[in-house]
């Protein structure tokens, strides 16, 4: 009978946790988790920026529908979005989609909605006088946004963006529901195979998520300080 914890199961399956069945099979484990989160981050940054800009549009026929969509997405659980994508995306494009892209699209749609709120708040947080100054020199509204408002707003948004990214890393664990072999899915596989080490395995998995997320939070704090405003003397 087993007494105490035996972490040798972790070392014996380390490669599996980190990269899945790669190179003999597709990449998985932690690498896949990071891959999903990274692609999701880039896409939802773009998505959030576009949605956020539409949300602050002066044209109400653009603003209100966008706000409606954003609020609907924010009002449903991520798991629902994943199921939607799982069944909807193949139907939409008329052929089966790889599970990885199901997850990436779900994360992107979901996180974009949250990002758009950050972008909206960031833009609205810049004093009105900045826009007026830019417009008064003859810049077009779009140029004023790109050259004057966004550079200031984005800098203020960095901490919130990193928070979203950290949430997204954790959210990738829901991918196991559609059989994507990211870190959590690999953990359940190893657990099913070895049978008697669930505690060790899931302590380890939790630690991995924590370390990754903590690292990014720390990075963001450092970045925030580096980019801090040059304050008045």
């Amino acid at each position, binding site marked *: 009978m087993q007494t105490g914890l035996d972490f040798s199961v972790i070392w014996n399956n380390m490669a599996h946790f980190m990269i899945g069945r790669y190179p003999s099979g597709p990449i998985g484990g932690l690498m896949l988790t990071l891959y999903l989160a990274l692609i999701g981050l880039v896409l939802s940054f773009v998505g959030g920026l576009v949605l956020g800009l539409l949300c602050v549009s002066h044209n109400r026929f653009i603003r209100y529908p966008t706000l409606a969509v954003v609020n609907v997405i924010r009002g449903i659980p991520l798991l629902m979005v994943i199921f939607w994508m799982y069944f909807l995306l193949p139907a939409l494009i008329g052929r089966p989609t790889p599970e990885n892209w199901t997850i990436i699209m779900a994360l992107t749609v979901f996180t974009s909605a949250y990002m758009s709120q950050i972008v909206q708040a960031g833009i609205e947080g810049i004093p009105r*006088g900045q826009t007026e100054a*830019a*417009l008064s*020199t003859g810049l077009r509204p779009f140029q004023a946004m790109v050259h004057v408002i966004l*550079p200031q707003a984005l800098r203020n948004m960095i901490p919130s963006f990193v928070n979203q990214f950290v949430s997204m890393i954790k959210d990738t664990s829901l991918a196991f529901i559609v059989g994507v072999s990211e870190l959590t899915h690999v953990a359940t596989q190893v657990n099913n195979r070895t049978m008697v080490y669930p505690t060790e395995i899931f302590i380890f998995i939790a630690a991995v998520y924590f370390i990754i997320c903590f690292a990014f939070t720390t990075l963001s704090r450092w970045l925030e300080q580096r980019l801090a405003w*040059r304050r008045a003397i």
Partner: protein
Amino acid sequence: MIRFEGVHKWFKKLHVLNDVNLHVKQGEVVVLCGPSGSGKSTLIRTVNRLEPIDRGKLIVDGQNLSDPKTDINKLRAEIGFVFQQFNLYPHLSVLKNITLAPIKIRNITRGEAEEQATVLLERVGLAEKRDAYPAQLSGGQQQRVAIARALAMKPKIMLFDEPTSALDPEMIGEVLQVMQGLAHTGMTLIVVTHEMGFAREVADRVVFIDFGVILEEATPEEFFKNPKHERARLFLKEILSPMH
């Protein structure tokens, strides 16, 4: 150059501009004054349509501001605007604050724009601050940079909305001197200010406004020596000897 014809504007129910008729000729320096809340800032902000007007006609540089065919962005490039709160771009250096619009709008090269910005900075006495950021400058310096930024577009008209009201007293002079220099170049200037010394020395005309109505239009000598309207008299008394 600028012609108001029966201009009205409302903020909700507040009638901020009430039948304003005013003609500012090319090269003229007009000082707008009046008590706070009188509508003088709103009036100057209508000239480049930071505030749209609700009724009447406003012609600037031959273009009707209410005409949908008027390209407001193009027109704004010809009108410099200086704000009470400076509104410099805090994320850009002094040089970039000045060169941003010329590069984007006038299609000149970065080199040309920087050369021109350097000349302007010399003119406002801040050549050595070209690489500083706005937060590193004093209020008076920031406002002079803001003037240089507006001048960089080579505007036909310059509008000043209480340019010295946010400044410490010892910095007001340096900004007024730059403005005085501008007036002597023959540029069309409209200045909202409480600096009556500036009005007396530099203005061709003083316009007194209260409750959105132009109550008096006169040369500075006339306005200061012999204000016709009771409210103007009261205002001058308040502003010239506030202790009484």
